[in-house]
């Protein structure tokens, strides 16, 4: 059930990418889809009544959550930021050249 809600969040991002005509809206759609994917990985690795995967002094912790998806997503978050910055830079150059964020007009101007 909770997986399905995560997929709904992902499909909102996909809808935004496919339907909207504004470049900033498309960047926002990519960001929302990325958030949903990050959340899905962590949801898969969660263990019921789990503890964070950090050892404590003088006690033995039995049920830790899965550290492997957390490590993968930790790199993915920073990569997502870098990719977002790259797309924003390209969008600013497009605005500088054409004076608009509307992708249909950009295609027409290109000829």
């Amino acid at each position, binding site marked *: 059930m909770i997986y399905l809600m995560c997929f709904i969040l992902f499909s909102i991002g996909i809808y935004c990418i496919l339907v909207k005509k504004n470049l900033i809206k498309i960047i926002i759609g990519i960001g929302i889809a990325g958030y949903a994917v990050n959340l899905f990985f962590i949801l898969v690795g969660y263990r019921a009544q789990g503890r*964070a995967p*950090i*050892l404590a*002094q003088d006690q033995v912790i039995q049920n830790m959550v899965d550290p492997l998806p957390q490590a993968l997503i*930790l*790199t993915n*978050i*920073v990569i997502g*930021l*870098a990719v977002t*910055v790259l797309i*924003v*830079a390209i969008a*600013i150059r497009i*605005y*500088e050249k054409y*004076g608009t964020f509307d992708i249909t007009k950009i295609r027409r101007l290109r000829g």
Partner: protein
Amino acid sequence: MNKKIKQPGMTLIVKTITRLTVGLILLYGIYIVTHGHISPGGGFAGGVIIALSFIHLMLAFGKDLALRKLSEKLAAFFESFGAIMFLTIGLLGFIGGYFFFNFIFKGKPFNLFSAGIIPLCNIAICFKVGAGLFAVFVALILLKVPIKKE
């Protein structure tokens, strides 16, 4: 009134609060990086927080003061330094046998100086992420977009 407009940056309130908080933010970032192998945190989070402290300075005081503290050339140098340091740590692992071998003595757990190469790798990644994001932000700020009339 004219003198205030010419000054770069935000108002006096923002500048005073920034003067108080920006050092604490930088210190918190360094803490997060150096304790990354004992407690939550690590190179990625600490690097982003250190970059945010310089960006905070730039947003409050204007770009000249922040660039005097950490110029573009220095940021580029730090990013390359981080990348080369990370690769060097990886290559030094061939002493023990394979790439990224944990060749330093591991020490006692729960101490600051433990876990071999992991704190050094954290520092390298912190240099790389922080300097890279700061350079990107400077490039975005310095670009003046001429408003084109249709």
